[in-house]
């Protein structure tokens, strides 16, 4: 419907809508479109400082042959799947809990959002101190409680470090999922539950046949945004581990950053960015298909 009315407005008023849209469009073009196109152009060049040489698709082919690329893609997938799954499960649980009527609900809702309000950089620094081997509070707590006998180097082992980074990411981002799902839950009329209860549906059946189907669009929105964000993860890795130890947390965005700014291979970095964007685009398309499919 809205699309049609816009079309009519355009026919009636000629160029007027374009006039109104121009400032926004120019701004977006300056900060997004031009850099985007320039990066595409750059990705066909081998750069050496200010000098560049046209190499066609060589950068892309080079990337696909690099074992570092595939290893960091694997790590990124692990990060994405584990963090989004954990955030979703916790977020849904918290949303259901905070939709119940109880005394401290308002206060708890505010508390819930606090971690999400922290900039990721602050969150990363915070957790790298908590995980610090010699004077981190986690080691202190676990030692006092008798869970461990010696301080654990949480960020000192590649796989453990990856999971600690995921933990820090989940701590911050489950709140956003909970928030969106809470909003979704408020759209469900209590009468559905009442009539289901009269028909004898138990709590699981009510969740499965009422809550879940109505919540589906909200769930998809959460999953789309979180998956794409998790796939692009950079800042928390930069502040907590800098890709270490032994590349254990070197995700694809961090690899791109290192190749671009560490080794000054701007063309190679631009090509990498385009490959990442391509994967994210595929994800978005897949999600949209799922979303549309369910609606029809």
């Amino acid at each position, binding site marked *: 419907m809205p699309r049609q009315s816009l079309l009519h407005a355009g026919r009636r008023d000629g160029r007027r809508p374009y006039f109104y849209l121009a400032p926004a469009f120019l701004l977006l073009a300056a900060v997004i479109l031009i850099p985007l196109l320039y990066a595409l152009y750059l990705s066909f060049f081998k750069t050496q400082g200010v000098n560049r040489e046209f190499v066609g698709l060589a950068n892309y082919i080079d990337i696909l042959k690099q074992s570092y690329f595939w290893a960091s893609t694997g790590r990124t997938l692990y990060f994405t799947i584990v963090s989004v799954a954990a955030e979703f499960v916790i977020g849904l649980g918290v949303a259901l809990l905070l939709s119940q009527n109880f005394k401290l609900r308002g206060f708890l809702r505010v508390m819930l*959002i606090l971690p999400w309000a922290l*900039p990721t950089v*602050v969150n990363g620094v915070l957790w790298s101190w908590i995980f610090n081997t010699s004077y981190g509070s986690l080691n202190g707590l676990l030692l006092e409680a008798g869970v461990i006998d010696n301080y654990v*180097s949480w960020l000192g082992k590649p796989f453990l470090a990856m999971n600690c980074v995921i933990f820090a990411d989940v701590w911050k981002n489950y709140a956003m999922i909970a928030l969106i799902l809470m909003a979704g839950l408020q759209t469900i009329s209590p009468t559905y539950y009442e009539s289901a209860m009269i028909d004898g549906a138990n709590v699981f059946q009510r969740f499965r046949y009422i809550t879940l189907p109505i919540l589906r669009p909200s769930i998809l929105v959460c999953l789309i945004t979180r998956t794409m964000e998790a796939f692009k993860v950079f800042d928390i890795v930069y502040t907590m581990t800098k890709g270490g130890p*032994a590349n254990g947390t070197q995700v694809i965005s961090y690899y791109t950053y290192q190749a671009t*700014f560490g*080794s000054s291979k701007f063309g190679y970095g631009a090509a990498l960015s385009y490959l990442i964007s391509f994967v994210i685009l595929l994800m978005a398309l897949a999600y949209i298909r799922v979303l549309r499919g369910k609606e029809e």
Partner: protein
Amino acid sequence: MKKLLSLIALVLALTLCFGGCAGTTEESSSTPEAETSGTENADVVTINILSSDDFAGFRTSVIPEFEATHPGIKINFQSVGYDALHQKEVTALAAGTDTYDVVDVDCIWTPEYVTNGYIECVDDRITDEMKTGILDVCMDILRYDDKMYGLPMFNDLFFMYYNKEILENAGITELPETWEEYDQVCQQLQTSGACEYGSAYGWAQAEGLICYYMDYVCAFGGSLQDADMNPTINTPENVAALQFMVDSLYTTKTTDPASITSDDRNAIELFSQGRLPFCINWSFAWGQFNDPTQSQVVDKVGVMLIPGHGDIRSAACAGSMGLAIASTSQHKDEAWEFISFLASKEIQKRQAIEGGSLPIWADLYQDEELLAQHPAAAEMVEQSTMAYNRPSFVYYNEFSTVLQVEIQNALTQAKTPEQALADAQTQVEQIAATY
């Protein structure tokens, strides 16, 4: 729904608020003059400087003097942490804009910056006094193909600091001279409860790791490049050096395991709190250890030679930095004025006394006043005669990235030292072939 909306508004407000805080603490200081530069009259030239935060405090403190004697020049001084410096400089320089007139160049970046045309040759600006008076070892860091590309700002290398009080209380009178003796002393201190660990290093996956590794490599008689500038990573000496580092984590247990995730600043903090008997660090650490506002070990710090191995008495990784003029600068003469001011004998002497650095001028090493006011000068000068430079490959950053990862593979016991260095050699040879 209304409630939820107000919640979201609150969150957004909080985010903005925190974001604002993060912005101001993350980015670094610039002089207050910088803000007003836009409104100055047209005769005044503003020189934008991007500097590492080593000695940034000292540099900021002498800017007013420079501006007083050079009324036509305003200095806009910015400093960032070392690990962010290269990225920030390369982004600005490669874009070809004149964001910075003066950039801070680490010795390992010179080949890259010169071959990429980022920094300006200064051969016709360097005076005869500079040519003969400044130590060659300092000039070398900004020399490429026999041309000079800036001026060194200090003669920096790793020093071994020790806490006199901890050693005295433990009855240790003889300072260890070899790495083996050093480990024994650490173990002795640890068993007596004087400290939890004898050493803590910055062995995180960053450039600092290569510097620490260099100390061992050179003490064990190894080298990372041969005379023809080819990488020689996988040699028995280098393997032995790495094995020693691994053993200090898992066998002798004298190294704090947190070293694998720490940078050299973490070690400075531990040492400043009096929790470490020894600390290998750069010269700016001296100033921090003796600053009562950030240290509990003021006047308790000594400098000794970094341990050696076999016939080699000591080996320290060198790591001087210098200032250079960006090729894109519109005010090269004024930029040079400021660089040569900081490099001048008078300022260098004050930087040594106030900041603890070693000066670049040869005759300052005999300066009575300096030696009298810098209690560790004699030991530092002795160490500077046993300093080694990291390899100067054009592809140094890529070399370093590979080596950092492989050393960490050994330090986390994912690979044996032999395997890690063999893998590093293969990868670096592949990189070298593309240049």
